């Protein structure tokens, strides 16, 4: 069980809360307290919109432990509207083929399970944007 490990990330995992650098205004996700752009301290929280577009994507066929039940699944690099890139699974795809540049939006879903008696880990996934931003 790794309860504290996931609990302490709840703000970023459930609400996409990152940081903004007070020196250069660079938006930071995930939060890391140091601006990766200018190296200054950056602890000001910033609420991301949850909107972005697909930068690249693939299908995982050989899943690691904890993800066997959902394989094959689509995982993507998402370029957030505010700048940063993140890795997330795509969900609610329906019949629509995924394409580079496709607009997507964040939703909260189950990420992995650790067996019948283990914990369920929830967090962000992205789905095709329902309406124009």
């Amino acid at each position, binding site marked *: 069980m790794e309860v504290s*490990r996931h609990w302490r*990330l709840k703000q970023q995992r459930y609400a996409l809360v990152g940081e903004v650098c007070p020196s250069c205004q660079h938006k930071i996700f*995930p939060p890391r307290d140091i601006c*990766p752009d200018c190296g200054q301290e950056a602890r000001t929280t910033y609420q991301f919109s949850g909107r972005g577009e697909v*930068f*690249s*994507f*693939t*299908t*995982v*066929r*050989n*899943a*690691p*432990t*904890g*993800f*066997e039940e*959902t*394989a094959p*699944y689509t*995982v*993507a*690099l998402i370029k957030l509207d505010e700048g*940063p*890139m*993140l*890795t*997330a*699974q795509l969900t609610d795809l329906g019949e629509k083929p995924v394409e*580079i540049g496709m607009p997507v939006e964040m939703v909260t879903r189950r*990420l*992995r399970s650790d067996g019948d008696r283990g914990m369920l*880990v929830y*967090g962000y996934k992205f789905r095709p944007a329902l309406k124009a931003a």
Partner: protein
Amino acid sequence: MPSTPPPEVYVAGVGLTPVGEHWNVSLRELALEAIEAARADAGGLRPQALFAANMLAPALSGQTHLGVLLADSAGLRGIEATSFEAAGASGGVALRQAYLAVRSGLIEVALVIGVEKITDRVGPAVEAARSMAGDADHEAVQGLTPAAQAGLLMRRYLHESGAPEDALAGFAVNAHANGLMSDHAFLRRAISVEDYRQAPREDDPLNLFDVAPLADGAAALLLTRRAALPSGGRPDVRVAGSSVATAATALHDQADMLGLSAAAESARRARLQAGVESDQISLFELHDAYSVFAPLSLEAGGFAERGQGWRLAAGGQIGLTGPYPICTFGGSKARGEVGGATGVYQAAEVVLQLQGRAGKNQVAGASTGLAQCLGGAGATAATHIFVAE
């Protein structure tokens, strides 16, 4: 006070075990075989320090503390021994540490041993162990695996370069052609471009032939000063350049992921130290755990323009007789992907080439060789340049 220059560092001997599914051999036995071969090749030199390279033993074998384990089981109890882990770059990183030790003058003979025992486990456990090299909280938690990272990179590479879907076929064809003739390669059969086109899909756009097979293996080499080299009537091989560089841990945090910045930077530093330009390199052992890393490494290393590396394979220029021989013993694709041992295999392969001991895989007139291994999706890169004297 007069200062003496730091000692130049030479390779005294190499040992390679055949890569494969060695169910009857343990981690320590595999390492012992490579260490004994390297020591025999070095005229029986005894190391004062052991530098172990391994990535997966903690997760797959329940074993940490490999430095002492391997020293103890190789009859070297008592010597300094440490293990180094930098995912797929572990071998190059351990080699770098051994190089620094000999170069410092404090260690006269250093042993580098790269070992990986993967096939005791299969399926999700192996995928989970290999995924630990990424960012656990922001990549692995999304189910991202090394193969998926390669799929993301390959789709983006094809998208940005405008290369056709089968653009990378030539890299797999070349690796298999070279592996066919190699005594230590895991896969020894040739494939055609048509085989590549017909291969089953993996993490798209990857197909089966874009993915190097995971296997067990161990390779070792001994570094020392020139004065301690065994007399063997073969060219001396000097470590002329050595560099490790890093980028962001997570693929998504790399500002220019197709630029493979750590690979580019470590290659640049190693070339600068060695005083060697790209066009003086006789062969390049690059880390093709997935085929897309071949063009990316060629571009980062200055052998091709951005987005053009795939053309070298399509044009047949990477073969043993071409201008840019790569993966001369099969690379990860045909030799087998041996995780943290990769960098030591690569270095040993370059040494065999520079000493004219590569048999049917010999690159004629090889005098300068480059070895580069990658940890994660290019997060760590270790580059070494070897020169025959």
